[in-house]
């Protein structure tokens, strides 16, 4: 269910200022696979767009794709009260599958470490600090010994679509659908 965690974090970053700051600090020295984007802050006064800036944030383009191909936004925005786990599960399977397709296509996400979670690891001096988060009792100089708790994720590519629309359409994540009779 790491994918679900990833989504949760994604939305917290997108909509929660505090989390986004925390994550930003966390990844400041992190691998530059995915550039931190200028996030739109609808509640704040939007900064006037610099002429070179693309008319739409790539984060919104990603969100639009997750909604278009996987209905993620519909899923997350719908209150779960009153639905049984089975009902939520039936819809979640499809959303889960299709979200995974989008993320794999754009980022080709892979585990950073190929070691089993729970296995012993040793970090020699000069290890790539950006790829590791050391928790617990860290003191002194490497080598460090420990247990691998999470194998990490990395984007092995970052191919985001180009958005060609104008300013007025940039905030539309999913258009209104009307069936003309």
């Amino acid at each position, binding site marked *: 269910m790491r994918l679900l965690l990833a989504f949760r974090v994604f939305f917290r970053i997108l909509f929660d200022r505090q989390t986004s700051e925390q994550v930003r600090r966390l990844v400041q020295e992190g691998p530059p696979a995915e550039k931190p984007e200028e996030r739109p802050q609808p509640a704040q006064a939007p900064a006037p767009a610099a002429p070179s800036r693309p008319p739409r944030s790539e984060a919104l383009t990603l969100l639009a794709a997750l909604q278009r191909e996987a209905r993620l936004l*519909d*899923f997350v925005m*719908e209150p779960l009260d009153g639905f049984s786990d089975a*009902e939520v599960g039936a*819809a979640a399977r499809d959303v889960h599958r299709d979200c995974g397709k989008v993320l794999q296509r754009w980022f080709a996400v892979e585990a950073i470490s190929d070691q089993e979670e729970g296995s012993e690891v040793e970090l020699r001096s000069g290890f790539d600090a950006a790829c590791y988060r050391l928790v617990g009792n860290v003191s002194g100089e490497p080598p460090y010994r420990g247990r691998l708790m999470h194998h990490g994720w990395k984007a092995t590519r970052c*191919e985001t679509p180009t*958005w*060609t629309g104008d300013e007025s359409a940039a905030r539309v994540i999913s258009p209104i659908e009307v069936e003309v009779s």
Partner: protein
Amino acid sequence: MAAKYVIGIDLGTTNCVAAYAPLEAEQPKTELLPIPQLVAPNTIEARRSLPSFVYLAEEHEAGGALDAPWAQDRDYAVGELARLRGAEKPDRTVGAAKSWLAHSRVDRREPILPWNAPHDVRKISPVVASQRYLEHLAAAWNARFPDAPLEEQRVVLTAPASFDAAARELTREAAASAGLPSDLILLEEPQAAVYAWVSSEGDRWRRRVKVGDTLLVCDVGGGTTDLTLVGVAEQAGELQLQRLAVGNHLLVGGDNMDLALAHYVAELFGKKNVKLDPWQSVALWHSCRAAKESLLANDGPEKQSISVLGRGSKLIGGTVSVEVDRASVVKLIIDGFLPSCSMDDSPARRRASGFMEIGLPYESDTAITRHLAAFLRMHGDPQEGPVAPTQILFNGGAFKSDVLRDRLLQVLRGWSGKKKGAQVLEGEQDLDYAVARGAAYYGWAKEHGGVRIRGGTARSYYVGIETSGLAVPGAPRPLRALCVAPIGMEEGSETDVPSGDIGLVVGEAAQFRFFSSPVRKQDKPGDVLSSWSEEELTETDSVEAILPADEAIDEPYVPVRFHTKITELGVFELWCFSPQTGGRWKLEFSVRDRDEP
């Protein structure tokens, strides 16, 4: 400017792919060309394949939202967006243009697609639709390699092995209009799949096969199935590959399987009193396509739920789902598409009705195994019986399923009796991209030397000659077929056709009915057939030439004979020449509506 790259283009019925390699590479390592395309209005994403669909937009949709990086104010879209719209608005979406190219009952240069579309849709011709896909690929190439424009590169374009000379000519015409180079090479798709295998195996391929082996290339694409046999022979101590036979263009493929599954699941919904509206049916098709892969994998789950999500923003509340069990789905697909059958079975024939719809001739029998049995029988030896392939090379997305691969192999082995049954050809089999990669490799190998599949023309060709004689009211004059090119006529060769003189009227279009056969291996140029069965000889587009009035000719008609040429690029040319005056006229395919006899 000299070509720097070799580009292989798979112009598929449902997907197009382009692969390339530097022409000067010592060992070609082919790369796939990323193809930027609209996936939603205003959104351009690079994908590895371009769905072969054209969406003819309504006026309010144009105006910028359908622009490509290289084209403004588009009122149509090609690729993923068009494929998605195809499900919502079939009246405005052109698909399967390639199958229409081979359909000689319609004029392929007339705007006829989407077939049966309402009058307010600006239709396009099958040739133009194919041109649009190739234009898109060319633009994607030129945007990525501005210093090496496509028209200056070595380009290999693949076409179905079953395409006859007229369909190949139309493919060339679409390619030329799309700005592909004029020295374009056309390659048969199953051969390209074999080249992809050869290139991935390197020198090892010689150890994987031996003299006397017969490879069956079984290509089940989205909408079509193509069968080809390739033999392994020896010449001067070297292994040689030889294309032995090609099957007909069968209009049944993976999409039929998705649809069959969707119908089955819709029935399950029906039993739960859930009636699906058209929008839900489209969504169900999508879900079934996704579920098929896991249901038809050997380690697939025994039961799986298939859901159709709610349409509005109330997703969970509107979701309906049913549970399907794997065994029933496997049985449904196998009974429908790969049933066990005997070597003597034939595909069920379409029942003739008074009113034949002129649309695409979809197979009335979806059993690929029965088509395969008929194919192996037709190309068998009178003494030794049907062909017994020793290896099989799979191609096409449908064969990602182990269940389908195993099943086909099992049926094939069942036919071989006590003899050792067919094996899967060892080595990498890249089901989605092999054809484009193999085409690029072939272009490279043509330059650098490397194994070549021999074979020449896949069909023999015939000109229909009406015999003279007393006219009988109401009865057509008896027709004979004069063989003008044999099966296996090599590229870069030409031949005079021995025959009596045929009188052509001067100053008028002389038109001949034209036939081809993938099976009559015994016929030589000059042979005249007075009777044949419908299975052996199929009529294709007629050929015609206009003989200009010539001062050297006093007579109202001029006696001519035929001369056939296969160019180095594989273009079939039929000429008529006058031994008396030395005049030569090229016969052109006339792809206009054929008068039904």
